[in-house]
């Protein structure tokens, strides 16, 4: 240290300063983000965009912020790949994650979620059990839609959907195995209560029959309804919430309520979430019956809380399916968690041939 700084060989100085800057450049974003998100009174909730976001904001985020003095930041589109990246690099920025069943259980298997204290929730009030790291949020209803002006004599069941002689026209199904295999088995006569474990061979055989009549295998959910609106497709797999929005926009789109597939949406807290305490409070808050009802007034899905069902506005309630109806299939996410990868790959291969 007795040497003056100017005596430092220039190259060494450049090397040293360069590597410091390099380290700073790599490290800075992580330090900055974790510092800001760890500030007291914040919560980052990942949820879906569009109307859905408005619902979550009005029914949950704003009242939660008011009650607990916590600023809630909503982020669109839950992406499990991003969760994996965050947990893997130990650079977690999200707290609460709004997740579809199969995705949620995959995350659970990989250890992406914090353990939940079951005492936080009224388990007797819920339509599905609380798992070790996820709480059921609501049920969404899958079925098919059609233009009622174009098809006044519409198919009612999945067997009708498969009956191209009686109901000619083009079909659309989802470009993925989950949901699609279930409706194929319903069409093939498998009763709803004997659905799981799925008879995969039988499902693919049933799909083989319909394959030539499927005009589009849909990746993007909005297309499930927009293709029917533009007359491209006659009968399309979709969800009640989408049909409700289309009807409210003045479209003549109808939904078949006889045989539905009910999928569960869950809430989870990311492992190592920076605002874990607030996140747990938020989960508990979201599951209170009155809040569930307020949210479902926006989303028109089936609340996970049974008590909430009666509090929902009557004109919204007509869009909700009853998970207790024996004709409806409630998606078995545990089964899918174990088989998702293999069956999905097979489905993709099947679609290409």
């Amino acid at each position: 240290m007795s040497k003056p700084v100017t005596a430092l060989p220039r190259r060494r100085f450049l090397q040293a300063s360069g590597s410091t800057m390099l380290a700073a450049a790599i490290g800075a974003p992580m330090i900055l983000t974790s510092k800001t998100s760890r500030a007291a009174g914040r919560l980052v909730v990942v949820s879906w965009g569009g109307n859905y976001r408005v619902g979550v904001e009005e029914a949950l985020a704003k009242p939660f912020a008011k009650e607990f003095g916590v600023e809630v930041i909503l982020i669109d589109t839950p992406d499990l790949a991003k969760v994996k990246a965050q947990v893997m690099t130990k650079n977690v920025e999200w707290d609460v994650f709004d997740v579809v069943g199969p995705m949620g259980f995959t995350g659970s298997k990989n250890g992406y979620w914090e353990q939940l204290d079951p005492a936080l929730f009224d388990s007797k009030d819920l339509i599905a059990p609380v798992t070790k790291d996820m709480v059921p949020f609501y049920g969404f209803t899958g079925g098919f839609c059609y233009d009622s002006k174009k098809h006044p004599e519409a198919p009612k069941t999945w067997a009708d959907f498969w009956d191209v002689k009686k109901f000619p026209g083009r079909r659309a199904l989802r470009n993925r195995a989950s949901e699609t295999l279930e409706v194929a088995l319903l069409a093939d006569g498998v009763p709803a209560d004997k659905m799981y474990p799925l008879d995969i061979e039988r499902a693919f055989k049933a799909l083989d029959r319909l394959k030539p009549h499927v005009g589009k295998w849909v990746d993007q959910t909005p297309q499930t309804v927009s293709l029917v609106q533009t007359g491209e497709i006659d009968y399309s797999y979709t969800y009640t919430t989408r049909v409700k929005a289309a009807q409210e926009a003045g479209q003549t789109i109808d939904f078949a309520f006889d045989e539905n597939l009910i999928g569960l949406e869950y809430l989870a807290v990311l492992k190592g979430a920076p605002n874990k305490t607030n996140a747990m409070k938020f989960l508990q808050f979201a599951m209170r019956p009155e809040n569930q009802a307020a949210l479902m007034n926006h989303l028109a899905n089936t609340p996970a809380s049974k008590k909430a069902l009666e509090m929902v506005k009557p004109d919204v309630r007509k869009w909700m399916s009853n998970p207790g109806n024996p004709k409806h299939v409630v998606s078995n996410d545990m089964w899918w968690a174990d088989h998702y990868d293999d069956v999905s790959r097979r489905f993709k291969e099947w679609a290409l041939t």
Partner: protein
Amino acid sequence: MTQKKDALLYVGPATLFLFLVILVPLGFVAWTSLHTGDSWSFAAYTQLFESVLFRRTLWTTFEISILASLGSLLLGYPVALHLARVSARKRAIYMVLVLIPFWTSILVKSFAFTVLLGRSGMVNTFLSWLAGSPVEVPMLFNRLGVMVGMTNYLVPFVVFPVLASLLAIDRSLYQAAEIMGAKPPRIFFRITLPLSLPGVAAAVLSTTVMSMGFFVIPALLGGRQDVMLSNLVDFYTRETLDWNMASAIGVILLGIVTIAALGVDRLQKFGARPRTAAV
């Protein structure tokens, strides 16, 4: 020596930046493709080449990319030719027409195409009106839909390089040819076309390479058989969370593109030699 130092000063920051944002993540991707669990292995690669899904998708990707590239060349070359012939002022105005679609979001354009090409879309309605009877040409959710969407996107990428090489041709060559009595077709095939080949090669290379990574268009306008490698990467990354496989596909894709680029570079150098001698 000072020149070298100067060069380092100018090029250094950009090089360092590129190193950080490209090479480091690329290294990570390569590492992920070779690292299963706790050990090194080629398992992902062997698994991929045994997989029907991958082999078919690879083939489809080649097919679509090459077709889309050639289609764009056929559509873009005449445009460039016309632009090269008009006055500089007119060219500037026409250029805007090429640039507007180029600046429009690919997602917006894809959704617009579903309205245009649909069963009862504008094109079919027009065809029905022409024919006097209902016409339903299937143009959506098949290869044709993908081609229309992709060429629409790629045409500007053909126009720019081809125009550049057309403008670089010495005017006196045309005059000389005319004086010698050459007719327009002969002038085109003996002068214009050969001298524009470097631009054509650049256009074909960049459009093919770009097509290989297409994602939105095949997903929105394609049918079940129009799955490209990027869609497969998405499937492995986000649906099955198998980053090992996704990375391996990424590395293979990069390899193919690199080989193609090197090949075209060679071709260009080889083609350039006799031409300079002739001129």
